[in-house]
C-alpha cells in the first residue's frame, strides 16, 4: 500500500510522508533485570491489543536467559485484563474488527503448523465475535523459527513470538532480517552491546532498557519499508510541510 501511494504521489512530484508497518524486535542479551524487561516488553507488545505500528512484536533472546524470560513474560501476560474498554478494570480491549480477528487467528494457526510452542493464549475469548466482540487472548509463542511468518510478518494483534539465539551476532542478524525498520529495543547490562545495537540495528528508532514508547517532541519514523519522508513529531516534521526557498538580493 505504502509503495503504491509513494509511486502515485511521486509521479506528481508532491511531497510525501509515509508511516507504515513494523516488526519491532525486543533484543534481550546479558540482561541484569529480566523482571523489568518482561514488564516493559509486555506493555509495549499488548498496548492497544498489539495494534500499534511500534508494538514490540518479537522477542529475540539469548539462549541462556530464554527459559527465565519466557516464564516472566507469561506472568506479566496473566495480569492483562481483557474486556470492554469502558470497563473500569480493563487493560486490553478487543481487536478493531472481524478482519483483524481473522488475520490473528490465521497467524496463530500457522505458528502451530510451524511447530512453534504455544505458551499462553492462542484463542478467541468469545464464541460469537461478530455479536459478542472481537476479543482475543494475549498470546505468547516460544521456540519460533526466525524464518517463519510469526517472526517476520506484521501481525498487528496480541501475539508475541519468542526467538532464541546464540549471542549478539545472531541476535542482530535476526533483528535485521525483516523488511521493516521502525523501532527496536535492547535490554542489557552490557554497555558494549548498547553501542553495537545503536550502530547495527536497521531501525528508525532504538530504545535501550525500555519498551517502544515515544515522546511528544522527539522525531518519530522508520527506515526500510517502515517509512519514507521526514520524521513526524518534533522539529523534523517541518521538512514534510514546508519547501525551502533560497533568496539572493543584490542591493
Amino acid at each position, binding site marked *: *500500500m*505504502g509503495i503504491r*501511494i509513494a509511486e*502515485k*504521489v511521486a509521479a*506528481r512530484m*508532491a*511531497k*510525501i*510522508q*509515509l*508511516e*507504515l508497518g513494523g516488526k519491532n524486535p525486543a533484543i534481550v542479551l546479558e540482561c541484569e533485570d529480566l523482571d523489568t524487561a518482561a514488564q516493559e516488553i509486555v506493555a509495549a507488545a499488548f*498496548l*492497544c*491489543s498489539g*495494534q*500499534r*505500528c511500534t508494538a514490540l512484536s518479537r522477542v529475540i533472546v539469548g539462549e541462556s536467559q530464554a527459559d527465565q524470560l519466557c516464564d516472566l513474560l507469561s506472568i506479566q501476560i496473566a495480569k492483562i485484563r481483557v*474486556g*470492554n*474498554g*469502558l470497563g473500569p478494570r*480493563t*487493560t*486490553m*480491549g*478487543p*481487536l*478493531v*474488527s*472481524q478482519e483483524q480477528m481473522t488475520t490473528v487467528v490465521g497467524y496463530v494457526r500457522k505458528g502451530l503448523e510451524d511447530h512453534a510452542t504455544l505458551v499462553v493464549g492462542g484463542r478467541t475469548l468469545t464464541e460469537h*465475535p*461478530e*455479536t*459478542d*466482540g*472481537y*476479543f482475543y487472548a494475549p498470546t505468547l509463542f516460544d521456540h519460533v523459527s526466525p524464518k517463519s511468518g510469526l517472526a517476520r510478518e506484521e501481525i498487528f494483534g496480541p501475539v508475541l513470538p519468542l526467538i532464541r539465539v546464540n549471542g549478539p551476532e545472531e541476535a542482530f542478524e535476526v533483528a535485521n532480517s525483516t523488511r521493516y525498520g521502525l523501532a527496536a529495543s535492547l535490554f542489557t547490562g552490557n554497555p558494549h552491546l548498547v553501542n553495537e545495537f545503536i550502530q547495527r540495528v536497521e531501525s528508525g528508532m532504538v530504545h535501550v532498557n525500555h519498551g517502544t514508547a515515544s515522546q*511528544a*517532541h522527539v522525531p518519530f519514523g522508520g527506515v526500510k519499508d517502515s517509512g519514507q*519522508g521526514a520524521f*513526524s*513529531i*518534533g*522539529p523534523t*516534521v*517541518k521538512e*514534510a*510541510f*514546508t*519547501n*525551502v*526557498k*533560497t*533568496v*539572493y*538580493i*543584490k*542591493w
Partner: protein
Amino acid sequence: MARHQNYIAGQWVSAQSGDYYQSHNPACPSQVVGEFPRSGPTDVDAALASAETARATWNQTQAPQRAAILLRFSQLLLDLKEELARIITLEQGKALCESVGEVTRASAEAAFAAGEAVRLSGQTFPSERPGFTCYTVLQPVGVVVAITPWNFPVVSPVRKIAPALACGNTVVLKPASMTPWSAVYITSLLEKAGLPPGVLNLVIGSGDCGERLLSDARVRGMSFTG
C-alpha cells in the same frame, strides 16, 4: 445515535449522494456508534477546492496567530479529554485509560506544533560576491492531505494536521472509515479554537476517497499512516 457530517469550507455538510454508513463498537459489534457520510468524488473535489481557496489567506496569516489557534486547540483537547477518550473507546475498542493517554498525548503534540509555527526559521549565508545578501526561508507546500489509520484515531490526525497548519498549509483530512467519530470531534475542536473556514476540511468515506486524493494535482503534500 447521532448522524455526523463532513466539514467543508467551514460548513457541516452531508455527502453529495446523501448516503450514510454505520460504524460499530468492536466490543459489541451489534451496537451502532454513529452514522457517517459515504463520501464520493464530488465531496473530495469540494474539499480540495475549499482547501485551495483558503490557502491564499491562511499562508498570509501571521505565525503567532496560527500558533494561538493551535494552543487553544491543545487546551480544548485537555479540557474535553474524558469525553473524547470515551469516543475513541466506543469506536476503536481500546481500554479507556489508553484512550485518555492518547488524547493527552495529542494535546502535547499540538502544543509543540504551535511552537513550531514561530520557529520556521531559515538560514543566512555569507556571499561570494559583494553587495549580496543570501538566505533561505521556509514556505508552506500548499494543500496537504492527511490519511489516517484506525488504531490511533486522535493522535494520528493531530500529528499531521497540527504541524501542517502551523507551517501555513491548508488540509484535507480523510480518516479511517472505522474510526471517523474521533475525527469529527477533533475537527469541531479546531473550529471552536478559531480556525478559519476552509483551512481544514474533513471528508469521511472509504478508500475510494483516498484514491481520489492521491491523484489530484492540487495536492502538494501527502501524509499517510497505515
